[in-house]
């Protein structure tokens, strides 16, 4: 039977001929544990009968979700984590400031292609950037994997996403994956593996952006086919069976914007131009790498961000941080008015560093815009690419970044001045009424549990 990448990997590790729908017991090559769930992981190991980790060389532990500690309670939890790491004899430990677990897992080579990796964070799908089957799980599942070195999995159906063409200048793979989320929806890949074709030769960072955001479609894993890291046997068979197929032509793709509070509520940027923004977050496992910071600096170098706007830049790892220091990117961003945070998750999940006040509107390069995600439940989060983030910081509104990349200095001055002047109101931005992104936001809020919005 021709096999998908997920079927190939799960057949190989489980030692049986696995097809979508089968349940398998899968040995894991590594388990990733992060700070914010450590108490429950330790409790799980204790309840399993004071179990130790099955192999100290195959466990990686990170302090990144609320780091450095923003409160005494968190500091205490970090202390417990450090003691546990020492007591268990785990060598692979990255403390506060080293970066986001997923970035380090991939860039430091902890993700062995063709193997199964269990991570305590939902974006562990990121490991598919190098051809690993990475699956996020809850604390007790992680404790079980730590104790046994194995986990149980239902072999997922796969969804084939094929990219064709090259994106135009100012359009990124973040826009590409947002376009995919727009088509597939937040549950369109539930329990499935999203298999990316036509993306294997992209830079590793772009592949992390793709694989990591499969989580936002409900996927169990997201795997990029034909990467340079993949072993010879790891390729999708011709004739493999897919639950769904989608092709995205990058050459006609517009910059994309996710409208709060749903990550699949995505519009072309032309539908969101002019939306005022109070705060911009550039960072996260999705878009906190050198290339992302360089894209922002390409627009912000030599200029100041809009007076009403704050910009927070959080590199995704110490390596990305230092590379961006060495080439002057961080200096350019700082000179433009950015707050530079220490490497880690930053305000992405609303626990530390630049959380949002009620009614504030954020443009984030991260991956989630749920109500309350980054702080106040009354704040709003738009998601976009680093280029869009930089333009929002510069002008105070959402705008198409492409003209900014093509403009002469004089044209740019005029463009920025016009956008700033058009920005409605003084001080805190408000959500505009009467446009499509606003309608979507209100409709979503009414359809489910999301925020009550005053019209």
């Amino acid at each position: 039977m021709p096999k998908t990448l997920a079927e190939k990997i799960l057949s190989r590790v489980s030692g049986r001929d696995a097809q979508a729908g089968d349940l398998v017991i899968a040995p894991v090559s590594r388990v990733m544990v992060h700070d914010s769930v450590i108490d429950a992981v330790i409790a799980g190991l204790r309840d399993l009968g004071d179990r130790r980790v099955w192999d100290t060389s195959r466990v990686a532990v990170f302090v990144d979700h609320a780091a450095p500690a923003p409160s005494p309670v968190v500091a205490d939890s970090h202390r417990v984590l450090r003691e546990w790491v020492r007591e268990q004899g785990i060598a692979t430990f990255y403390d506060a400031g080293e970066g986001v677990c997923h970035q380090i897992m991939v860039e430091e080579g902890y993700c062995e292609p063709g193997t199964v990796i269990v991570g305590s964070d939902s974006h562990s799908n990121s490991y598919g950037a190098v051809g690993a089957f990475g699956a996020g799980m809850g604390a007790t599942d992680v404790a079980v994997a730590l104790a046994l070195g194995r986990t149980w999995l239902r072999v997922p159906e796969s969804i084939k996403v094929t990219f064709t063409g090259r994106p135009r200048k100012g359009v990124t793979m973040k826009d590409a994956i947002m376009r995919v989320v727009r088509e597939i929806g937040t549950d369109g890949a539930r329990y499935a593996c999203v298999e990316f074709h036509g993306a294997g030769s992209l830079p590793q960072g772009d592949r992390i952006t793709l694989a990591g955001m499969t989580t936002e479609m409900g996927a169990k894993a997201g795997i990029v086919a034909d990467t340079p890291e993949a072993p010879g046997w790891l390729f999708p068979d011709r004739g493999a069976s897919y639950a769904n197929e989608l092709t995205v032509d990058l050459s006609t793709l517009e910059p994309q914007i996710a409208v709060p509070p749903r990550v699949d509520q995505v519009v072309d940027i032309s539908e969101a131009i002019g939306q005022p923004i109070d705060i911009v977050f550039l960072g996260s496992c999705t878009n906190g790498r050198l290339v992302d910071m360089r894209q922002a600096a390409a627009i912000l170098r030599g200029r100041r961000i809009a007076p009403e706007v704050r910009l927070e830049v959080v590199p995704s790892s110490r390596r990305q941080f230092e590379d961006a220091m060495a080439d002057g990117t961080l200096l350019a961003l700082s000179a433009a008015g950015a707050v530079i945070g220490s490497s880690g998750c930053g305000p992405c999940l609303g626990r530390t560093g630049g959380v949002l006040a009620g009614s504030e509107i954020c443009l984030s390069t991260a991956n989630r815009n749920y109500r309350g995600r980054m702080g106040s439940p009354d704040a709003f989060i738009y998601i976009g690419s680093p280029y869009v983030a930089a333009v929002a910081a510069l002008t105070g509104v959402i705008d198409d970044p492409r003209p900014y990349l093509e403009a002469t200095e004089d044209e740019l001055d005029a463009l920025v001045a016009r956008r700033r002047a058009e920005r409605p109101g003084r001080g805190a931005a408000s959500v505009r009424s009467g446009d499509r992104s606003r309608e979507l936001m209100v409709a979503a809020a009414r359809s489910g549990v999301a925020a009550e919005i005053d019209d």
Partner: protein
Amino acid sequence: MSRAWVFGDDLDTDQMVPGRYAPFMVGQDKFHLYAFCDARPGFAKEVQPGDVLVGGKNFGCGSSREYAVAALKKLGVGGIVAKSFARIFFRNCINLGIPVLESGDAVAFARDGDQVALDLGAGVLRTPHGDARLRPIAEFAQEILAAGGVVAYLREHGDFPSIL
């Protein structure tokens, strides 16, 4: 009989327990008191042991945070019936011993505040407006649930079966 708490589609775990009220932010003894604090104020105070949550599609999507499920467990939620579940949330519920059942029509039948009965033996959720059929769950997951969660299962069996 127990009360039904009815929610919509795509209920994410940030709504169940926002990150700012994670156990490691507010303490292990308090985090459950913030369950649905933004999405359904008053829930943590009013919910009674055995109450049933009813939801639409993709229930429990988003963050892997098991403490969202742990909060529901601490508050005594007796079961969750939804059109479909997000995968990590589903596993977390099985692992902590909360029955999670898919049903195409429960969310159409049950209204918030209804008195309902979750009859796992018969495979139905009884509501004042009709019985919603529940889809059977995988045998292996049933065994874990029957043991009271994955920790209890492994304490009983010592290990997973070598092959499923």
